Protein backbone atom coordinates (compact mmCIF):
# COMPACT_ATOMS: atom_id res chain seq x y z
CA UNK A 1 0.00 0.00 0.00
CA UNK A 2 2.80 2.37 1.02
CA UNK A 3 4.91 1.50 -2.04
CA UNK A 4 1.84 2.01 -4.25
CA UNK A 5 1.37 5.44 -2.68
CA UNK A 6 5.03 6.27 -3.22
CA UNK A 7 4.73 5.17 -6.83
CA UNK A 8 1.67 7.37 -7.27
CA UNK A 9 3.44 10.33 -5.68
CA UNK A 10 6.47 9.78 -7.88
CA UNK A 11 4.25 9.59 -10.96
CA UNK A 12 2.39 12.76 -10.00
CA UNK A 13 5.71 14.54 -9.33
CA UNK A 14 7.01 13.40 -12.70
CA UNK A 15 3.86 14.51 -14.53
CA UNK A 16 3.87 17.84 -12.72
CA UNK A 17 7.58 18.25 -13.43
CA UNK A 18 6.94 17.55 -17.07
CA UNK A 19 4.08 20.07 -17.11
CA UNK A 20 6.33 22.59 -15.39
CA UNK A 21 9.01 22.10 -18.04
CA UNK A 22 6.48 22.43 -20.85
CA UNK A 23 5.07 25.62 -19.34
CA UNK A 24 8.54 26.98 -18.68
CA UNK A 25 9.65 26.28 -22.22
CA UNK A 26 6.50 27.91 -23.60
CA UNK A 27 7.25 30.80 -21.28
CA UNK A 28 10.70 31.13 -22.76
CA UNK A 29 8.99 31.06 -26.16
CA UNK A 30 6.76 33.89 -25.11
CA UNK A 31 9.67 35.81 -23.66
CA UNK A 32 11.37 35.56 -27.01
CA UNK A 33 8.36 37.03 -28.82
CA UNK A 34 9.73 39.96 -30.69
CA UNK A 35 9.20 43.59 -29.92
CA UNK A 36 8.99 46.02 -32.88
CA UNK A 37 12.51 47.21 -32.01
CA UNK A 38 13.95 43.71 -32.20
CA UNK A 39 11.94 42.87 -35.31
CA UNK A 40 13.40 45.91 -37.11
CA UNK A 41 16.91 44.99 -36.00
CA UNK A 42 16.40 41.45 -37.31
CA UNK A 43 15.04 42.72 -40.61
CA UNK A 44 18.13 44.91 -41.05
CA UNK A 45 20.38 41.95 -40.16
CA UNK A 46 18.56 39.75 -42.68
CA UNK A 47 19.02 42.31 -45.46
CA UNK A 48 22.70 42.76 -44.56
CA UNK A 49 23.16 38.98 -44.59
CA UNK A 50 21.63 38.86 -48.05
CA UNK A 51 24.07 41.57 -49.15
CA UNK A 52 26.91 39.47 -47.78
CA UNK A 53 25.70 36.38 -49.62
CA UNK A 54 25.85 38.32 -52.87
CA UNK A 55 29.14 39.95 -51.82
CA UNK A 56 27.70 43.38 -52.51
CA UNK A 57 29.77 45.08 -49.85
CA UNK A 58 33.03 43.73 -51.27
CA UNK A 59 32.40 45.91 -54.33
CA UNK A 60 32.41 42.86 -56.54
CA UNK A 61 30.89 43.34 -59.99
CA UNK A 62 27.48 41.71 -60.11
CA UNK A 63 26.28 40.20 -63.37
CA UNK A 64 22.74 40.51 -64.74
CA UNK A 65 21.80 36.94 -63.73
CA UNK A 66 22.92 37.53 -60.17
CA UNK A 67 21.03 40.83 -60.09
CA UNK A 68 17.89 39.01 -61.16
CA UNK A 69 18.31 36.46 -58.37
CA UNK A 70 19.05 39.22 -55.84
CA UNK A 71 15.95 41.10 -56.90
CA UNK A 72 13.86 37.96 -56.40
CA UNK A 73 15.35 37.39 -52.95
CA UNK A 74 14.82 41.04 -52.00
CA UNK A 75 11.24 40.81 -53.16
CA UNK A 76 10.65 37.73 -50.98
CA UNK A 77 12.25 39.42 -48.02
CA UNK A 78 10.25 42.63 -48.53
CA UNK A 79 7.00 40.63 -48.51
CA UNK A 80 7.92 39.46 -44.99
CA UNK A 81 9.01 42.89 -43.79
CA UNK A 82 6.26 45.09 -45.26
CA UNK A 83 2.52 44.82 -44.78
CA UNK A 84 1.68 45.80 -48.37
CA UNK A 85 -2.01 45.12 -47.91
CA UNK A 86 -2.35 47.59 -45.06
CA UNK A 87 -0.08 50.12 -46.78
CA UNK A 88 -2.36 50.14 -49.79
CA UNK A 89 -5.51 50.43 -47.66
CA UNK A 90 -4.01 53.39 -45.83
CA UNK A 91 -2.93 55.08 -49.05
CA UNK A 92 -6.34 54.67 -50.69
CA UNK A 93 -8.06 55.88 -47.50
CA UNK A 94 -11.86 56.01 -47.23
CA UNK A 95 -12.31 55.15 -50.93
CA UNK A 96 -11.21 51.63 -50.02
CA UNK A 97 -14.84 50.97 -49.07
CA UNK A 98 -15.94 51.51 -52.66
CA UNK A 99 -13.44 49.00 -54.05
CA UNK A 100 -14.72 45.48 -54.74
CA UNK A 101 -12.68 42.55 -53.38
CA UNK A 102 -11.22 41.97 -56.83
CA UNK A 103 -10.28 45.64 -57.16
CA UNK A 104 -8.70 45.61 -53.71
CA UNK A 105 -6.51 42.64 -54.59
CA UNK A 106 -5.51 44.28 -57.85
CA UNK A 107 -4.71 47.55 -56.08
CA UNK A 108 -2.46 45.80 -53.54
CA UNK A 109 -0.68 43.86 -56.29
CA UNK A 110 -0.04 46.97 -58.41
CA UNK A 111 0.96 49.11 -55.45
CA UNK A 112 3.44 46.42 -54.35
CA UNK A 113 4.92 46.32 -57.85
CA UNK A 114 5.20 50.12 -57.95
CA UNK A 115 7.02 50.25 -54.62
CA UNK A 116 9.30 47.32 -55.41
CA UNK A 117 10.28 48.69 -58.79
CA UNK A 118 11.09 52.09 -57.36
CA UNK A 119 12.67 51.23 -54.08
CA UNK A 120 14.88 48.35 -55.05
CA UNK A 121 14.44 47.72 -58.76
CA UNK A 122 16.13 51.04 -59.41
CA UNK A 123 18.63 50.60 -56.60
CA UNK A 124 19.93 47.51 -58.34
CA UNK A 125 20.62 49.60 -61.41
CA UNK A 126 22.85 51.82 -59.27
CA UNK A 127 24.73 49.36 -57.09
CA UNK A 128 26.93 52.06 -55.57
CA UNK A 129 23.85 53.39 -53.75
CA UNK A 130 23.39 50.00 -52.08
CA UNK A 131 27.10 49.79 -51.33
CA UNK A 132 26.92 53.09 -49.46
CA UNK A 133 24.50 51.39 -47.07
CA UNK A 134 27.00 48.63 -46.24
CA UNK A 135 28.63 48.38 -42.84
CA UNK A 136 27.15 49.81 -39.69
CA UNK A 137 25.23 52.54 -41.39
CA UNK A 138 21.74 51.90 -40.06
CA UNK A 139 21.26 52.37 -36.34
CA UNK A 140 17.99 51.44 -34.65
CA UNK A 141 17.51 54.05 -31.91
CA UNK A 142 14.35 53.11 -30.04
CA UNK A 143 10.68 52.33 -30.16
CA UNK A 144 7.45 53.90 -29.06
CA UNK A 145 4.32 51.80 -28.55
CA UNK A 146 1.25 53.60 -29.91
CA UNK A 147 -1.09 50.77 -28.89
CA UNK A 148 -0.75 47.03 -28.25
CA UNK A 149 -0.49 46.35 -31.99
CA UNK A 150 0.99 49.58 -33.36
CA UNK A 151 4.40 51.11 -32.79
CA UNK A 152 6.97 53.55 -34.18
CA UNK A 153 10.60 52.45 -34.46
CA UNK A 154 13.21 55.16 -34.89
CA UNK A 155 16.44 54.70 -36.78
CA UNK A 156 19.28 56.78 -38.19
CA UNK A 157 20.71 56.08 -41.62
CA UNK A 158 24.20 57.37 -42.26
CA UNK A 159 24.52 58.11 -45.94
CA UNK A 160 27.71 59.74 -47.13
CA UNK A 161 28.57 62.45 -44.60
CA UNK A 162 25.04 62.96 -43.36
CA UNK A 163 22.66 61.31 -40.96
CA UNK A 164 19.00 60.93 -41.85
CA UNK A 165 16.30 60.10 -39.32
CA UNK A 166 14.16 57.28 -40.71
CA UNK A 167 11.18 56.02 -38.74
CA UNK A 168 9.02 53.00 -39.32
CA UNK A 169 5.36 52.66 -38.44
CA UNK A 170 4.78 49.04 -37.53
CA UNK A 171 1.74 46.90 -37.02
CA UNK A 172 1.38 43.50 -35.42
CA UNK A 173 -0.21 41.04 -37.79
CA UNK A 174 -0.67 37.40 -36.80
CA UNK A 175 1.85 37.88 -33.98
CA UNK A 176 4.49 39.40 -36.24
CA UNK A 177 5.56 43.01 -36.49
CA UNK A 178 5.54 44.37 -40.02
CA UNK A 179 6.30 47.82 -41.43
CA UNK A 180 3.42 49.72 -43.02
CA UNK A 181 4.92 53.20 -43.35
CA UNK A 182 8.36 54.73 -43.68
CA UNK A 183 8.97 58.33 -42.57
CA UNK A 184 12.19 59.86 -43.91
CA UNK A 185 13.15 63.23 -42.46
CA UNK A 186 9.55 63.75 -41.44
CA UNK A 187 8.13 62.88 -44.87
CA UNK A 188 5.69 60.02 -44.61
CA UNK A 189 5.61 57.70 -47.60
CA UNK A 190 2.00 56.65 -47.08
CA UNK A 191 0.78 60.18 -46.45
CA UNK A 192 2.45 61.15 -49.70
CA UNK A 193 0.78 58.34 -51.64
CA UNK A 194 -2.49 59.04 -49.88
CA UNK A 195 -2.47 62.64 -51.13
CA UNK A 196 -1.91 61.42 -54.70
CA UNK A 197 -4.41 58.56 -54.62
CA UNK A 198 -7.15 60.64 -53.08
CA UNK A 199 -6.65 63.42 -55.56
CA UNK A 200 -7.01 60.93 -58.42
CA UNK A 201 -9.92 59.10 -56.77
CA UNK A 202 -11.70 62.42 -56.28
CA UNK A 203 -11.82 62.74 -60.06
CA UNK A 204 -11.84 59.12 -61.20
CA UNK A 205 -13.70 56.00 -60.13
CA UNK A 206 -11.74 52.99 -58.81
CA UNK A 207 -11.65 51.34 -62.25
CA UNK A 208 -9.98 54.36 -63.88
CA UNK A 209 -7.67 54.76 -60.89
CA UNK A 210 -6.51 51.15 -61.21
CA UNK A 211 -5.92 51.69 -64.92
CA UNK A 212 -3.69 54.68 -64.11
CA UNK A 213 -1.82 52.62 -61.54
CA UNK A 214 -1.39 49.81 -64.03
CA UNK A 215 -0.11 52.21 -66.71
CA UNK A 216 2.39 53.67 -64.25
CA UNK A 217 3.69 50.22 -63.28
CA UNK A 218 3.92 49.22 -66.95
CA UNK A 219 5.88 52.39 -67.77
CA UNK A 220 8.42 51.51 -65.09
CA UNK A 221 9.36 48.18 -66.63
Amino acid at each position, binding site marked *: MFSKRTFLLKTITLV*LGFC*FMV*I*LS*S*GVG*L*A*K*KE*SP*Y*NATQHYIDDVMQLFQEYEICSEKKIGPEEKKALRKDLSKMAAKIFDYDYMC*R*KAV*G*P*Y*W*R*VFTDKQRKQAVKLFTE*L*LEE*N*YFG*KLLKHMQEIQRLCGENIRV*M*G*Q*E*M*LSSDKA*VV*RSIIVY*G*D*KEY*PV*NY*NMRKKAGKWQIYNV*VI*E*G*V*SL*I*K*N*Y*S*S*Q*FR*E*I*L*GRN*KPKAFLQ*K*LQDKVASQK
Partner: protein
Amino acid sequence: MFLVFLGIFVFPPQVFGSEPVQKGRGDTSGNASVEQGGPDFDLGDEKSDNLDQDGELDREALYQKLRKQDQGRKKLIADPLEPVNRAVFKFNDKVYVYVFTPVSDTYTVIVPSGLRDKIGNIFYNLGYPQRFVNDLLQFRFSAAAKETGSFLVNTCLGFLGYLDVAQHIESLNNPSPPDNDFGVTLRYWGMGQGFYIVWPVMGPSTLRVSTGMVGDYFVEHYTDPFTYYSSWELSWGFRMEERLNSVPSILNRYNKMKGAALSPYVAVKNGYVQYRQNKLRK
Protein backbone atom coordinates in the same frame (compact mmCIF):
# COMPACT_ATOMS: atom_id res chain seq x y z
CA MET B 1 2.98 25.87 -10.32
CA PHE B 2 -0.29 27.52 -11.16
CA LEU B 3 1.34 30.76 -10.19
CA VAL B 4 4.07 30.15 -12.75
CA PHE B 5 1.43 29.25 -15.28
CA LEU B 6 -0.62 32.35 -14.49
CA GLY B 7 2.45 34.57 -14.33
CA ILE B 8 3.41 33.77 -17.90
CA PHE B 9 -0.02 34.58 -19.22
CA VAL B 10 -0.74 37.59 -17.08
CA PHE B 11 2.48 39.43 -17.91
CA PRO B 12 2.59 40.54 -21.50
CA PRO B 13 5.61 39.38 -23.55
CA GLN B 14 7.00 42.94 -23.66
CA VAL B 15 7.85 42.58 -19.97
CA PHE B 16 10.60 40.18 -20.95
CA GLY B 17 12.11 42.45 -23.56
CA SER B 18 15.11 44.56 -22.60
CA GLU B 19 15.36 46.90 -25.56
CA PRO B 20 15.40 50.65 -25.05
CA VAL B 21 11.91 52.08 -25.09
CA GLN B 22 11.70 55.83 -25.39
CA LYS B 23 8.63 57.65 -24.33
CA GLY B 24 7.43 61.10 -25.18
CA ARG B 25 6.35 62.41 -28.51
CA GLY B 26 8.35 65.58 -28.83
CA ASP B 27 11.22 64.11 -30.80
CA THR B 28 9.70 61.64 -33.16
CA SER B 29 10.14 63.64 -36.35
CA GLY B 30 6.45 63.63 -37.08
CA ASN B 31 6.18 59.86 -37.01
CA ALA B 32 3.78 59.36 -34.15
CA SER B 33 1.47 61.90 -35.68
CA VAL B 34 1.22 59.70 -38.76
CA GLU B 35 -1.14 57.54 -36.80
CA GLN B 36 -3.00 60.46 -35.29
CA GLY B 37 -2.81 62.34 -38.54
CA GLY B 38 -6.50 63.02 -38.87
CA PRO B 39 -8.42 62.85 -42.10
CA ASP B 40 -5.62 61.41 -44.24
CA PHE B 41 -5.88 58.09 -42.48
CA ASP B 42 -9.57 57.59 -41.80
CA LEU B 43 -10.63 54.35 -43.37
CA GLY B 44 -14.26 54.99 -42.52
CA ASP B 45 -16.87 52.72 -41.08
CA GLU B 46 -18.05 50.07 -43.50
CA LYS B 47 -21.07 49.23 -41.33
CA SER B 48 -22.68 52.57 -42.05
CA ASP B 49 -22.45 52.18 -45.82
CA ASN B 50 -25.54 52.54 -48.01
CA LEU B 51 -27.10 49.31 -49.18
CA ASP B 52 -29.44 49.12 -52.17
CA GLN B 53 -32.77 47.28 -52.33
CA ASP B 54 -31.10 43.86 -52.69
CA GLY B 55 -28.92 44.49 -49.67
CA GLU B 56 -25.87 45.00 -51.88
CA LEU B 57 -23.48 47.87 -51.29
CA ASP B 58 -24.51 50.85 -53.41
CA ARG B 59 -21.00 51.70 -54.58
CA GLU B 60 -22.00 54.59 -56.82
CA ALA B 61 -23.88 56.38 -54.03
CA LEU B 62 -21.07 55.69 -51.58
CA TYR B 63 -18.44 56.94 -54.05
CA GLN B 64 -20.34 60.21 -54.55
CA LYS B 65 -20.76 60.62 -50.80
CA LEU B 66 -17.07 60.03 -50.09
CA ARG B 67 -16.04 62.33 -52.90
CA LYS B 68 -18.12 65.11 -51.43
CA GLN B 69 -16.69 64.50 -47.96
CA ASP B 70 -13.17 64.36 -49.31
CA GLN B 71 -13.53 67.68 -51.14
CA GLY B 72 -14.52 69.32 -47.88
CA ARG B 73 -11.58 68.00 -45.85
CA LYS B 74 -8.82 70.27 -44.64
CA LYS B 75 -5.91 70.25 -47.08
CA LEU B 76 -2.25 70.12 -46.06
CA ILE B 77 -1.78 73.48 -47.77
CA ALA B 78 -4.01 75.81 -49.81
CA ASP B 79 -3.19 75.91 -53.51
CA PRO B 80 -5.19 78.77 -55.07
CA LEU B 81 -2.59 79.18 -57.83
CA GLU B 82 -2.83 75.51 -58.84
CA PRO B 83 -3.27 76.03 -62.61
CA VAL B 84 -0.27 78.41 -62.75
CA ASN B 85 1.75 76.21 -60.37
CA ARG B 86 1.10 73.14 -62.49
CA ALA B 87 2.25 74.99 -65.63
CA VAL B 88 5.44 76.16 -63.88
CA PHE B 89 5.96 72.62 -62.56
CA LYS B 90 5.82 71.29 -66.13
CA PHE B 91 8.22 73.98 -67.29
CA ASN B 92 10.61 73.20 -64.44
CA ASP B 93 10.49 69.51 -65.29
CA LYS B 94 11.71 70.30 -68.81
CA VAL B 95 14.47 72.53 -67.40
CA TYR B 96 15.56 69.78 -65.00
CA VAL B 97 15.57 67.13 -67.74
CA TYR B 98 17.13 69.11 -70.61
CA VAL B 99 19.38 71.63 -68.83
CA PHE B 100 20.13 70.51 -65.28
CA THR B 101 20.59 66.80 -66.00
CA PRO B 102 23.41 67.20 -68.55
CA VAL B 103 25.04 69.89 -66.39
CA SER B 104 24.72 67.68 -63.32
CA ASP B 105 26.05 64.61 -65.20
CA THR B 106 29.12 66.55 -66.30
CA TYR B 107 29.65 67.98 -62.81
CA THR B 108 29.42 64.53 -61.16
CA VAL B 109 32.09 63.22 -63.54
CA ILE B 110 34.44 66.07 -62.64
CA VAL B 111 33.59 66.14 -58.92
CA PRO B 112 32.97 62.68 -57.41
CA SER B 113 30.34 62.17 -54.73
CA GLY B 114 32.76 62.15 -51.75
CA LEU B 115 34.25 65.48 -52.78
CA ARG B 116 30.77 66.93 -53.43
CA ASP B 117 29.85 66.10 -49.83
CA LYS B 118 32.98 67.89 -48.60
CA ILE B 119 32.32 70.96 -50.77
CA GLY B 120 28.75 70.89 -49.44
CA ASN B 121 30.22 70.92 -45.92
CA ILE B 122 32.17 74.10 -46.73
CA PHE B 123 29.08 75.88 -48.04
CA TYR B 124 27.06 74.70 -45.07
CA ASN B 125 29.72 76.02 -42.72
CA LEU B 126 29.86 79.38 -44.48
CA GLY B 127 26.05 79.59 -44.25
CA TYR B 128 26.58 80.11 -40.51
CA PRO B 129 25.51 83.82 -40.39
CA GLN B 130 22.04 82.95 -41.67
CA ARG B 131 21.54 80.25 -39.07
CA PHE B 132 23.02 82.41 -36.30
CA VAL B 133 20.82 85.42 -37.07
CA ASN B 134 17.70 83.24 -37.22
CA ASP B 135 18.62 81.49 -33.96
CA LEU B 136 18.85 84.91 -32.30
CA LEU B 137 15.56 86.07 -33.83
CA GLN B 138 13.94 82.97 -32.35
CA PHE B 139 15.64 83.48 -28.97
CA ARG B 140 17.42 80.14 -29.34
CA PHE B 141 20.58 81.33 -27.63
CA SER B 142 21.90 77.86 -26.89
CA ALA B 143 21.56 76.90 -30.59
CA ALA B 144 23.24 80.20 -31.58
CA ALA B 145 26.15 79.40 -29.24
CA LYS B 146 26.46 75.88 -30.65
CA GLU B 147 26.38 77.24 -34.20
CA THR B 148 29.12 79.76 -33.34
CA GLY B 149 31.25 77.06 -31.72
CA SER B 150 30.81 74.70 -34.69
CA PHE B 151 31.62 77.48 -37.14
CA LEU B 152 34.81 78.48 -35.33
CA VAL B 153 36.02 74.89 -34.89
CA ASN B 154 35.22 73.86 -38.47
CA THR B 155 36.66 77.04 -39.98
CA CYS B 156 39.92 76.94 -38.03
CA LEU B 157 40.52 73.21 -37.65
CA GLY B 158 38.39 71.78 -40.45
CA PHE B 159 39.77 73.80 -43.40
CA LEU B 160 36.79 76.21 -43.69
CA GLY B 161 34.41 73.34 -43.00
CA TYR B 162 35.81 70.81 -45.49
CA LEU B 163 36.01 68.50 -42.49
CA ASP B 164 33.15 68.53 -40.00
CA VAL B 165 35.33 68.42 -36.87
CA ALA B 166 32.56 69.85 -34.68
CA GLN B 167 30.38 66.75 -35.08
CA HIS B 168 32.89 64.86 -32.93
CA ILE B 169 32.47 67.35 -30.09
CA GLU B 170 29.36 66.37 -28.20
CA SER B 171 28.59 69.79 -26.75
CA LEU B 172 28.44 71.27 -30.27
CA ASN B 173 26.18 68.62 -31.71
CA ASN B 174 22.62 68.98 -32.97
CA PRO B 175 21.86 72.68 -32.82
CA SER B 176 18.12 72.85 -33.10
CA PRO B 177 16.74 73.21 -35.74
CA PRO B 178 19.84 72.12 -37.66
CA ASP B 179 19.13 74.18 -40.77
CA ASN B 180 17.49 77.31 -39.46
CA ASP B 181 16.18 79.91 -41.90
CA PHE B 182 14.02 83.01 -41.98
CA GLY B 183 10.96 80.96 -42.96
CA VAL B 184 11.23 79.21 -39.57
CA THR B 185 11.65 82.61 -37.88
CA LEU B 186 8.47 83.91 -39.52
CA ARG B 187 6.65 80.84 -38.22
CA TYR B 188 8.09 81.57 -34.78
CA TRP B 189 6.69 85.08 -35.00
CA GLY B 190 3.25 83.73 -35.81
CA MET B 191 2.99 83.90 -39.62
CA GLY B 192 0.92 81.11 -41.18
CA GLN B 193 2.40 79.00 -43.98
CA GLY B 194 0.22 80.75 -46.58
CA PHE B 195 -0.34 79.03 -49.89
CA TYR B 196 1.76 76.83 -52.14
CA ILE B 197 3.95 78.44 -54.82
CA VAL B 198 6.06 76.81 -57.53
CA TRP B 199 8.80 79.20 -58.61
CA PRO B 200 10.37 78.88 -62.05
CA VAL B 201 13.60 76.84 -61.78
CA MET B 202 13.74 77.07 -57.96
CA GLY B 203 10.67 74.88 -57.57
CA PRO B 204 8.34 74.32 -54.61
CA SER B 205 7.86 76.93 -51.91
CA THR B 206 5.21 78.44 -49.68
CA LEU B 207 4.34 82.08 -49.19
CA ARG B 208 6.10 82.06 -45.81
CA VAL B 209 9.25 80.36 -47.12
CA SER B 210 9.35 82.75 -50.11
CA THR B 211 9.08 85.76 -47.80
CA GLY B 212 11.78 84.24 -45.63
CA MET B 213 14.08 83.83 -48.61
CA VAL B 214 14.12 87.61 -49.03
CA GLY B 215 15.28 88.03 -45.42
CA ASP B 216 17.92 85.31 -45.79
CA TYR B 217 19.15 86.93 -49.01
CA PHE B 218 19.93 90.16 -47.14
CA VAL B 219 21.73 88.31 -44.34
CA GLU B 220 23.70 86.34 -46.94
CA HIS B 221 24.51 89.47 -48.93
CA TYR B 222 25.69 91.62 -46.01
CA THR B 223 27.73 88.85 -44.39
CA ASP B 224 29.38 87.66 -47.60
CA PRO B 225 33.09 88.56 -47.42
CA PHE B 226 33.21 88.75 -51.23
CA THR B 227 30.78 91.67 -51.12
CA TYR B 228 33.41 93.78 -49.34
CA TYR B 229 36.74 92.42 -50.47
CA SER B 230 36.44 91.34 -54.08
CA SER B 231 34.59 91.70 -57.34
CA TRP B 232 30.94 90.76 -57.91
CA GLU B 233 32.07 88.15 -60.45
CA LEU B 234 33.86 86.18 -57.74
CA SER B 235 30.89 86.51 -55.43
CA TRP B 236 28.49 85.27 -58.09
CA GLY B 237 30.87 82.48 -59.09
CA PHE B 238 30.98 81.39 -55.48
CA ARG B 239 27.18 81.36 -55.22
CA MET B 240 26.86 79.55 -58.55
CA GLU B 241 29.21 76.81 -57.35
CA GLU B 242 27.17 76.50 -54.16
CA ARG B 243 23.99 75.94 -56.18
CA LEU B 244 25.71 73.67 -58.70
CA ASN B 245 27.18 71.48 -55.99
CA SER B 246 23.73 70.77 -54.57
CA VAL B 247 22.11 70.10 -57.97
CA PRO B 248 23.05 66.38 -58.30
CA SER B 249 21.53 65.39 -54.97
CA ILE B 250 18.42 67.55 -55.46
CA LEU B 251 17.97 66.18 -58.98
CA ASN B 252 18.44 62.65 -57.70
CA ARG B 253 15.73 63.17 -55.09
CA TYR B 254 13.41 64.83 -57.61
CA ASN B 255 13.83 62.00 -60.12
CA LYS B 256 13.18 59.34 -57.48
CA MET B 257 10.06 61.12 -56.35
CA LYS B 258 8.83 61.63 -59.90
CA GLY B 259 9.56 58.00 -60.82
CA ALA B 260 7.61 56.60 -57.90
CA ALA B 261 4.69 59.01 -58.18
CA LEU B 262 1.33 58.50 -59.74
CA SER B 263 0.77 62.23 -59.70
CA PRO B 264 4.20 63.95 -59.58
CA TYR B 265 2.79 67.45 -58.94
CA VAL B 266 0.82 66.30 -55.89
CA ALA B 267 3.71 64.09 -54.70
CA VAL B 268 6.24 66.94 -54.76
CA LYS B 269 3.80 69.40 -53.16
CA ASN B 270 2.92 67.00 -50.36
CA GLY B 271 6.53 65.91 -49.83
CA TYR B 272 7.77 69.50 -49.68
CA VAL B 273 5.10 70.68 -47.24
CA GLN B 274 5.60 67.63 -44.99
CA TYR B 275 9.36 68.31 -45.00
CA ARG B 276 8.91 71.98 -44.08
CA GLN B 277 6.36 71.22 -41.38
CA ASN B 278 8.70 68.65 -39.87
CA LYS B 279 11.48 71.23 -39.81
CA LEU B 280 9.28 73.46 -37.65
CA ARG B 281 8.72 70.69 -35.13
CA LYS B 282 12.42 70.57 -34.24
